[in-house]
C-alpha cells in the first residue's frame, strides 16, 4: 500500500465534475483499492456519491491511499488531478 497527501486547490472544491474525474481515473484499476482519507473518514475513490457528500472545499487536505495492482500508477494519476486543480 502506498499513499500521498494532497490538497484541494481549485476554487470550487469537490463537486460533480471533479468527483467524476476521480471515479473515471480509478475505474481502469479494478483490482486496486483506492481510498480518500478525509476528516477521519475513508471514502472509496470509486464512489462519486460519497466523494461529493463529504463536502470537501478549497484548502481541504486529504490523503490518497492505493493498495493493489497498479497502485503507483493510479496514485500518481489521482494526485495529478488534485495538483492541477482538476484543470479548472
Amino acid at each position: 500500500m502506498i499513499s500521498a497527501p494532497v490538497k484541494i486547490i481549485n476554487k470550487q472544491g469537490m463537486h460533480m465534475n471533479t468527483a467524476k474525474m476521480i471515479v473515471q481515473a480509478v475505474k481502469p484499476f479494478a483490482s486496486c483499492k483506492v481510498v480518500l482519507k478525509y476528516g477521519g473518514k475513508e471514502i472509496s475513490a470509486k464512489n462519486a456519491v460519497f466523494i461529493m457528500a463529504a463536502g470537501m472545499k478549497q484548502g481541504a487536505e486529504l490523503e490518497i491511499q492505493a493498495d493493489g495492482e497498479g497502485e503507483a500508477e493510479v496514485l500518481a494519476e489521482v494526485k495529478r488531478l488534485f495538483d492541477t486543480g482538476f484543470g479548472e
Partner: protein
Amino acid sequence: MLKGLAVSPGIGVGKAFVYVEAGLDYSRVEPQGEEAELARLAGAKASFLRDSEALAKSLKEAGNVREGDMIEGHMVLLEDDFLAEEMEKAVKEGKSAEAAAAAGCAAVAELFRQVDDEMIRARAADMFAIRDRLLKILLGVESQDLSAVPEGSVFVTGDLTPYMATGLKRGNVEAIVTETGGMTSHSAILARAMGIPAVMGIPGLLGVVKAGQTLAVDGAAGEVVVFPPREVLDDYLGRQKKWRESKAALLVYKDRRTKDKDGGERLVCANIASVGEAELALEQGCEGVGLFRTEMLFMDRESPPSEDEQAAAYRKASEIMAWRELIIRTMDIGGDKQVPYLHLPQEPNPFLGYRAVRFCLAEPELFKVQLRAIFRAAAGRGNVKIMIPFVTGPEEIEGVRGIAEGLKRDLASEGAAFNPDVPLGIMVETPAAVQLADALAARAAFFSIGTNDLTQYTLAADRMNTRVDYLYSHYHPAVLRSVERVVAAAKAAGIPVGMCGEAAGSPGLVPLYLAFGLDEWSVNPGSVLATRKAIAGWSVSEAREVAARAMALSTTKEVKAYLEGVVAQRG
C-alpha cells in the same frame, strides 16, 4: 387573449403542438418478484448508460463540453455503489423497479442536501433528473419526438430548454409560447436568433391551451389568442403576410456585402452569446461577430469552464466564422451578472461597482484562464480579436496587456500552439472612455461602442427604473455627441470603430453613424439584413446633410422626431 413577455418579434399562426413531459406515475406497477425487478433495473441502467454515452459524445463533438460533462457526471452517479445498494435494498423489501429507482435517487439526493456546500446541495436536482430518465425507460414512456412537430405548428411548452430549442425543425414552427422564461433566458435568445416569433412567461398556459387548437401569436406585442374568432384570425393572417413579405424582401441582402449608396464598404456583424448562435448568425448573413458575450459560458453551472473547454468553444466559433472576424469580449461578470460560485460580495450599487475589467485585474486567475484559452484557440487563425469591457482609462488596457504578455511567455515556454498576435481592443461604454477616447485609441487595436451602458451612464438613468426610463434614449444629443467624438478619435488614430449596442439596430440612427464614419454595426442576428438594407439606402453626402441638421438640435424629442420623419419620408 393571453399576455406574456414579447421575447421575439413576428406574427405566427398555427396549431398548438403541446409538449409535455411524459407522466411518470408508477403507483400501479405490480412488482413481479425480486429477481425480475432486479433484472428490470439492470436493463434500465444499461439502456440509460448506452444513451448517455452517445449523447455525451455528440454534445462534446458539437462544442457543448459543459453539457457533455454533465451527462457523464450523471453516468458516474448512476453507476455508484451506494445508489445501487439503496435500489437493491428497496427491491428486496418488495418494491417495484420503479419505486426502487425513486427511493435510491431520493436517498442520494437527501445525502447531498445535508452537505454544507451550495454546489453539492444543488446536485439533488440532478438525482431527480436521473430518476426521471430511469422511470421513463422502465415505464416505456417517451417524451414526444421533437422532430415530429408537424408543419404549421405553434410550439407550446412549460419551459423551453436549449436542448428542445435546438431539436426543433425551424421551418415547421410558426411561433413558440411558454409558461416560463424571461427576455434574457437562453431560450429567448435562441428564438430571436432563429427568427421565430415567441411569447414567454404566461403562467397557467398549459391549463388553457389544448393540442391542436389554433393559436395566433404576436411576438412583438407579447400576445397570444387561443382559438381566435374569424375577424381576429384574419387580422393576424394579414399582419403575418406583411411580416413575411418584409422578411422576404430583406433576403436579397443576404449574400451581399454591406455597402452604402456610394459603394463604400461597411460591415454588419452579429452579437452572439454561445457557439450555437454563431451558426444561426451566419445563416442570417452576418459579416462576422462583433460581440461574442462570454458570460454564458460561466453562468448556470457549478464551477468555471476549464481552459480546454473555453479554448474548444472559441476555436469552434472561430472556425464557424471562417475568414470573418470574431470579437471575443472577455468576461463581463459582476454588476448585474452574478455567478454564484465566484462568491462576489453583494454591492449597494452594482452598476458602479466591482465588475468586468475591474474584477479581472483585481482577481486575475479566472481572467488568465480565459486569455490563455483565447490565445490557444486563435493558433493559426487570423480572425480572432479580444475586446475588454468597461474600460475607464489607459491603465486598464496596459494592465490587461501586461497580463497577456506574461501569459504568452508562459505559453511559449510550454511549447503550446497559440497566436501571439491577437488584436486587443476595447469597448467604449463609459463617459470616461469617451473623454479619453484619443488616449485610449493610441493603445487599443479597435473600438466598439457599447451604447446600452454608454447611454445609461451618460444620462445617469437606469432604464429598468420606470420613473426615469423616459430619459434613456440613444437619440439624446449628449449620447450622439459622445458617439461622434469616439468615432472621430478612432479615425484620427487610424483604428477601426464599431458599435455593438442596441442603437446599432435602429434604422433612424443609421445616417448619423454613417456620417460620423462608423465602420461596423454589430446587431442581433435577426436584425442583420434590415441594418444592411438601411445602410444601403444612404450616400455619405446625404447622411452628412441629415447629421448636420440632427446634431444642431438640442433635445431627444426634436432629434427623434426629425430622424423618424426623414426615415418615414424615404420609405
